[in-house]
């Protein structure tokens, strides 16, 4: 007989998963509109090839790359930590070089950045709740923006936003799977 009564941990686990999913969907929506204004302000074409841009976490998973729940959450957490740093660089480049007077545009980047930080924090909480250790995080020192040309800055910003959008979709899927893990004890499954 399935127990109608849910243990406090499972309830907390479900609530946290729901909150992460909700936030990921919010970020996705904000990033979609941010992408519109980004492309317009950089004079870019949405379909431009970004293969040459590296250093951005890619949401697409290798074929057959089945991950454990902990690995899934860990990968998500690492990605959003990276996006925190990357968005910070994109914001700085927009302020200093590309759209210095467009303060509203900067505010919208900043808003997404804060939500990404919140999402990373919630993922850390969820990992802790499920008894998993948080993957170590070593923020790669910010690249010297002077090394990048302005055009490379524009492309990189576009790739950051596009991949962030993809990650939010992946996170919603991953977190739904995590949320379906019934009766997980406090220690990992």
């Amino acid at each position, binding site marked *: 007989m399935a127990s109608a009564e849910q243990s406090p941990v499972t309830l907390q686990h479900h609530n946290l998963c729901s909150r992460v999913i909700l936030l990921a969907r919010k970020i996705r929506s904000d990033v979609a509109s941010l992408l519109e204004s980004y492309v317009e*302000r*950089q*004079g*870019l*074409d949405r379909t*431009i*090839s*970004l*293969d*040459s841009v590296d250093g951005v976490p890619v949401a697409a998973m290798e074929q057959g790359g089945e991950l454990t729940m902990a690995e899934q959450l860990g990968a998500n957490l690492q990605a959003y930590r990276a996006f925190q740093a990357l968005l910070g660089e994109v914001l700085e480049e*927009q302020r*200093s*070089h*590309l*759209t*210095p*007077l*467009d*303060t509203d545009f900067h505010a919208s980047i900043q808003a997404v950045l804060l939500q990404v930080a919140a999402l990373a924090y919630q993922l850390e909480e969820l990992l802790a709740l499920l008894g998993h250790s948080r993957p170590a995080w070593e923020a790669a020192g910010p690249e010297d923006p002077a090394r990048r*040309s*302005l*055009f*490379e800055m*524009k*492309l990189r910003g576009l790739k950051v936003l596009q991949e962030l959008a993809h990650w939010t979709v992946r996170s919603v899927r991953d977190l739904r799977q995590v949320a379906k893990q019934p009766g997980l004890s406090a220690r990992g499954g």
Partner: protein
Amino acid sequence: PENLKCITHDLNRMICSWDATSSANLGLTYKICYTNSEHFSLVCIETEGKRADIPVTVGSTNIRITTLNASGTSLATETFVLSEENVSLIPLTPQILNLSADFSTYTLYLKWNDSGSVFQYELDASWQIQILRKETLETVALMNYDSKLTGKDSILSWNWTSDIPLECTSYYVKIRCYINEPYFTGRKEWSEWSPIRTVPEKDTKPNSAMVFPQDKVVLVGSNVTFCCLYNEGESIKFMNYGSKSYPLLRLNKWSSAIKVQNVSASISSGTNVWCLLEPDGLEGTVLFVGYAPDTPQNLNCETRTFITITCSWNPGRATALYRQRQTKYILFERISKENVTCKVDELNKEHYCDFPVHANQKIYNFTLGASNPLGQAESSLLIDVNQRVHLETPVKFTVSTNSSTNAHLSWYIPGNFIQIRLLCQIEISNSNSERQLNVSMAGAENSNYRAWVDALHPYATYTFRVRCSASEHFWRWSKWSEEKKLTTLE
């Protein structure tokens, strides 16, 4: 010996060469005899080659050339009557001393030695500078340049500006010389071309694909050429300016260009220029298209506190350039020769700049210079600081009374007005009347000022406010102070 040809490089000596009909050249020597025009003596020299270095003679001279075999027996003799007309003046082949490039301005700088010391007197010289594209050997420029040889060696310099970035392709540069000696009756010919020099020095096979010019700033309406450099084994699919593809011009194996005419103002982040490569690769740059600064408009300078002079102005037409490319303003004062770099807020339509008031300086001759990567402009203004006093708003305004018909007023104005008198206007109003009272008073430093008003009605409520200006040379009123209400005693 036949076909005697003589050339001179310096009008002092000439090199004569000839052909020999006999087929057996081995072991032959030649004896050349000529009359020395200074001492009219016969000079003979022997050479193994069919050329000899002999002095240039004025008028004509006889040259006898005898072919001798190994044992010294004369085989043939020919006498030539050589006149100046038969001699060619061909300057020495010039040498390029230095060839450098300023990539930011697409300019090549050339330096060479004119070898003026070869001649003992002043002469007109013409130079030809030829610039070719290295790979295609297509002549890009052929320029003439005239100079005067002064009897001493001089370093000549020339520069040439390309219409496409210098990084796009290598260039060969060579020069040659022509000497226009008016009294020389022989033929005058161009020198040989100098040895070729290449710029940039080493061959520029790109080590990584790139687009040039990188992040350039140009005027609206310019015609701009961009090139895409790619590696060996790569090829270019297309090249875009903004969202439009342009026809490709092949410069060399790893460089193609597009020409964009009459560019329009770019968005703040610049117009993208990018090329897509095969098998893969995307390279790009950004072009900032804007305007030179407008002449600063409505330049006004006044002092609020006699501590600083604040100049304000309207920047005029927007330049469409921001941050590192924004317009920079410098306020220069001619009398004190002092200048101030102004910090302006790009977001604000009105710009301000503060300049210190100097003790014992009344007249200020200001020039406000505006500059950005595309040009500069300036406005000037001469003021007498005493005639440009615009006081701050009176603050700490209080009104009090201890009678039924008088009121005491006090207010504070920041600034050092010791050198001038102030005129303050007190406005007194109540439900049915309003009057203004002008009061003159000595200026002070960061001080409270007082005045009193009489002829008020007993037990009546009045509203007071005050504003001030310079008394002697009126320029502007300060803003009104806040209003204060007072009811006189019964």
